[in-house]
């Protein structure tokens, strides 16, 4: 049982929760995540630990309400308890002084990116952050990123804020400079990570991506989270979630993410109906 101590809405469908979890707050490192389960009949879903305060004993989760469980979570309030929360899971980000690093966050990907930006900054790297969102409304963590980086580039698909382009455009420009980046970290929707990796490939810039496959146990027990990386099968929950973007088979991963699409869509639809009913009370 983990108590929600603070709840914010960051954008139309994105929420931030501060949750009591003293042991996880102490042990966690950038790049790690938790799994939570809201009820006996619930589903275990992974969320990145986007910040933690070991002294206060809490962790921060930022999530987008996309389906059943994330909607249920969005409906919870300060003082409520999350029935089950386990972590920290996954292999922490490899942090060292690489030199100059470009960190690309697409949509909700900014949330998992944030602790990595902090970690890399603290290790002495020069950090450029590229944040992308469909529109101004959906952009999150702009101020925090600005405070933790040397340069921030914002772009939106519709041009409602910052540059009107996809994140790959400024990424390409940075790679074309004389002193090209030593490392790129890209986190966001799979399609974005795929194209970021394609963008950096011709420049030979190492690119780390963080994969958000479907998970159950999160400890390497089921293999449900597996992906193909460099023709080998890897388990995202233990071998990852971060991998060399130039080796990941994104197409296979995207297909696997949609394995339960039919069921999820109907549940999602159902939970919108339920939300509306609740609204009326």
């Amino acid at each position: 049982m983990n108590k929600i101590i603070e709840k914010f809405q960051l954008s139309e469908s994105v929420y931030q929760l501060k949750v009591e979890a003293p042991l996880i707050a102490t042990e966690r490192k950038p790049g790690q995540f938790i799994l939570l389960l809201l009820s006996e009949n619930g589903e275990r879903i992974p969320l990145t630990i986007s910040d933690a305060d070991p002294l206060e004993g809490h962790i921060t989760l930022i999530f987008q309400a996309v389906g059943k469980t994330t909607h249920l979570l969005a409906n919870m309030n300060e003082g409520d308890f999350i029935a089950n929360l386990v972590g920290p899971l996954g292999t922490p980000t490899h942090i060292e002084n690489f030199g100059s690093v470009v960190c690309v966050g697409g949509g909700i990907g900014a949330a998992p990116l944030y602790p990595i930006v902090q970690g890399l900054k603290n290790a002495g790297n020069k950090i450029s952050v590229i944040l992308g969102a469909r529109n101004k409304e959906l952009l999150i963590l702009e101020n925090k990123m600005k405070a933790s980086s040397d340069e921030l580039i914002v772009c939106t698909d519709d041009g409602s804020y910052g540059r009107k382009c996809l994140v790959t455009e400024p990424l390409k420009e940075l790679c074309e400079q004389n002193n090209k980046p030593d490392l790129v970290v890209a986190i966001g929707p799979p399609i974005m990570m795929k194209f970021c990796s394609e963008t950096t490939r011709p420049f030979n810039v190492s690119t780390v991506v963080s994969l958000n496959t479907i998970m159950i146990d999160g400890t390497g027990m089921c293999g449900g989270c597996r992906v193909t990386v460099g023709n080998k099968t890897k388990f995202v929950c233990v071998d990852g979630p971060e991998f060399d973007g130039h080796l990941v088979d994104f197409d296979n991963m995207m297909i696997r993410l949609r394995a339960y699409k039919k069921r999820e869509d109907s549940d999602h639809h159902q939970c919108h109906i339920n939300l509306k009913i609740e609204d009326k009370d």
Partner: protein
Amino acid sequence: MTYIPPEILQHDAKILIEKLKSKQNSLTPKDRISIPPQEMPTQDPNKRNKNMNEVALGFFVEQAKLEAMRCIQCKNAPCVDGCPVRIDIPGFIKAIAQEDFKKAIEIIKNNSLLASVCGRVCPQETQCQETCTVGKSLKDVNKAVSIGRLERYVADWERTQKNIADPIVKPNTGKKVAIVGCGPAGITVAADVRREGHAVTIFEAFHKTGGVLVYGIPEFRLPKKIVQEEVDFLKKMGVEIKTNFIVGRTRKLTDLIQKDGFDAIFIGSGAGLPRFMNIEGENLVGVFSANEYLTRSNLMKAYDKENAHTPIFDSKIVAVLGGGNVAMDAARTALRIGAQEVHLIYRRTEVEMPARVEEVVHAKEEGVIFHILQNAKQIIGDENGHVKAIECLKYELGEPDASGRRRPVEISGSEFNIAVDTVIVAIGNDSNPLIKQTTPSLETNRWGNIIVDENCKSSIDGIYAGGDIVLGAATVILAMGQGRIAARSINEYLQD
């Protein structure tokens, strides 16, 4: 085998008991051996393959008595040698024949802690029943005295008694023991160590306790209520259970000793790392490890499509690869979830199948289609990356291999396809490397199993291990047996 409804089994048993009444105390061994082996009453195969309720219903009291009367109480009792925890088998069976069920269960409990579980899932035909004199004289191991069914009978009898005595726990010693994993090994150690008065905390990674008994073995073979009762018993003894706690991640193993003041640790973390075939097409949509498929269905209750939020794949035609208990469980679960056809593909023959005989029989009765001496070569996908078919090869048996079983040799050019939309890989588990990775000084062998001495002590003082993490994927009874040894060692260690 033809299905015999429970009423008929009971009726027949009643008549026979009546007939034997007059000479009950003067039965000769020959009389005993001529009593027909009692069949386990089960749900009708065509009904049960659509529900999750327990398949085997347990003996009627008349059957239990008759089966117990089949035991000739032979002096050398080879069955005891076949039992990994050396239960006094003739002793408890005699008590059943005398209708003293209380005494029977007490005899079992001297050696075993999980009678209602082991009575259901032990591979008796390769343990106690394999060497049974009755089976030997009838030249058929399946006609041995059904020791497991009798064990289950008295364990279930006890569960229905209202006045189960409260556990006796010695006064607090001030010592603390941590147990990693709440499977059969961990449960056993917890009970035996707590009884000596040490404080015990179990750390369990999942949100539910029971290990494989809960996430792997399905409800239709082992009702979760039984496992829950075992865990409730531990709580009654004062054992503390922390779920959602992954030792190695939430807290390092060594921190438990150095920072949290535990005096000893038992690791019973099981063998949870699914093996795949490493063949083409294994990452297509529709391919699952048995662990994933069974975890979704059992732990996350995905079979309850109305209420559970965790989805399970909507399969029409399923191929299951493997021939062990895990494969049988996956195949039978797939039927219950609604698959129209389930093909079980195994590269040796039925004789070599590691599954319990009863599970093989039940799977066939329920309609699982067996393909022996065949193996998957590759999984074929459609243009959307979903499974479309499985390509198999035929095999024949060659020379015996290291395991003593005749090695299957592929017949070249024998490839053929089966159209399927789902493939479940059930070819075994290796040990989960998580604890080893976060505790470098812990010695393991090349399969990742923790190395222990004959007292189940690991390479680190104060740290003990047992069950699947030591043995590789093994059995419940062996996990319990090692748990008892480890508990004894821990209790001795804490005395000094």
